[in-house]
């Protein structure tokens, strides 16, 4: 088993996987806090079109994904308020985008395996250039996140007061969307378009169910994300089964198990009885 770790593709996979799950955990924390899971879902569908369309320009699918998700994310960020509640409209646009993706797929790749890679992840075949691209943009994204952390948190919870205190709420919303686009493009690399939720949302959602302290929550999200990713990769390699299946299964099962478990174990997580129903 250890001999495997000497293989270059495995090293690449672990490096990329590690950084990407860290950034997914942090961005995911905000996605859950800001209730923007739908936007994340949409962007990952769009990623499919970007990946398949990239072939037209001869670019790697990662580049195509980046380009398209960032573009659409920018659009979401700009039209932010007007998009809320427009599920049908967005659903129609997404379906069209997916339809385009299917077309591109048929036109430029004659095998369905490519599609499956984009849809279900291709971390074990990540190339050196993809690795550098994702490490580079990932690190940049992390730095930006660290800088905007406080005002973003403020704007996410209390936009009116934040605005009054000089926080550029709209601009931050736009920046965050673009960061989300970048993160999703990278997540697609690891688990594919269809399973992005597992890497992006599950760790953060689980952490937020367990604790309400921001610092601890983020730390826990990262820990869980890494656990799922490494665990998934190891299991996938061991059983010769798609890595993304294991990552997604670990993530999803942990989340779905934690909720009832946590309700049973810690009653003091809730408002105490004396409190309930009091108005002030």
């Amino acid at each position: 088993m250890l001999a495997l770790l000497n293989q270059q593709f495995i090293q690449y996979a672990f490096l990329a996987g590690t950084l990407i799950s860290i950034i997914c955990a942090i961005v995911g924390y905000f996605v859950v806090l800001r209730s923007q899971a739908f936007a994340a879902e949409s962007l990952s569908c769009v990623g499919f079109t970007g990946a398949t369309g990239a072939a037209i320009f001869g670019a790697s699918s990662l580049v195509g994904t980046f380009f398209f998700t960032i573009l659409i994310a920018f659009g979401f960020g700009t039209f932010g308020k007007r998009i809320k509640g427009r599920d049908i409209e967005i659903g129609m646009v997404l379906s069209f985008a997916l339809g385009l993706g299917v077309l591109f797929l048929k036109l430029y790749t004659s095998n369905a395996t490519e599609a499956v890679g984009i849809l279900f992840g291709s971390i074990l075949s990540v190339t050196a250039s993809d690795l550098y691209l994702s490490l580079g943009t990932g690190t940049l994204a992390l730095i930006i996140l660290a800088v905007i952390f406080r005002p973003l948190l403020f704007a996410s919870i209390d936009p009116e007061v934040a605005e009054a205190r000089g926080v550029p709420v709209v601009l931050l919303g736009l920046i965050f969307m673009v960061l989300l686009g970048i993160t999703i493009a990278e997540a697609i690399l690891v688990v594919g378009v269809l399973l992005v939720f597992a890497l992006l949302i599950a760790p953060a959602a689980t952490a937020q169910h367990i604790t309400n302290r921001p610092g601890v929550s983020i730390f826990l999200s990262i820990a869980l994300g890494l656990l799922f990713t490494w665990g998934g990769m190891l299991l996938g390699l061991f059983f010769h089964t798609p890595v993304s299946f294991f990552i997604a299964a670990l993530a999803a099962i942990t989340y779905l198990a934690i909720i009832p478990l946590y309700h049973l174990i810690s009653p003091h997580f809730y408002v105490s009885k004396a409190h309930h129903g009091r108005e002030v």
Partner: protein
Amino acid sequence: MFEILQYSFIQNAFIASFFVAIIAAVVGYFLLVRGLTFAGHALSHVGFAGAAGAVLLGVDPIFGLLAFTIISGIGIGMLARVLKERDVTIGIFLTLALAFGILFLFLYQGYAEQAYSILFGTILGISTFNVFVTAIFSSISLLILLFLFRPLLFSSFDPEVAQARGVPVKLLGVVFLIFVAITVSISVQVVGVLLIFTLLVGPAATAMRVVKNPYLTIGLAICLGIAYSWIGIFIAAQTNLPVSFFIASLSFGAYLVVRLKEVIS
């Protein structure tokens, strides 16, 4: 150009999509009115796992789809109020379903092809057996929905008053979702799991913006659904490009035109 119409596989595609379009229009209309479009999305994802599982077991995927979607549909129907706000939980659950779908397919040799066809549709390869299954399920569903039409309409627009007038609102809700499940299952054959919106929601959403009368809306939606499907199949047969792409484009295009007209006037 029209010679292809004599091939049985094209005729099968036309017939099957005809039956799908009708029931999809009716069910889609109610999905929109009841605010349950997410359920269509959810069921199609769950359906993927079912279809994949069926393939693994050597059974026709349609049965896997039907089994998984109907059970989930009943589940969603019973938990509807609890689930409505819980995007994250539903999303993660669906992700799990998809993950198992890939696993099942992976365990079956040649999984890429099967995955592709379940995700994006295989109407041009539909078997005569499946055409029968589609026609039968669609017709029975349609008949039952016609019977339930008025109380369903009433409880969709005014659930509290309907309840007071003796309509079994909750039961209807669950029964409705069973038909959503059936519709999703047979629609997957035409456009696949990922593009279910284009046939299930597209025609009805477009029709709703053109006419307000429920009966006319559904009638128009049926016509649109059939038009998208048949034109899509026809062009796909000529160009050898994916059917679902054309259906998606037509569905989106019509919707866009209608929305733009609204914005301009």
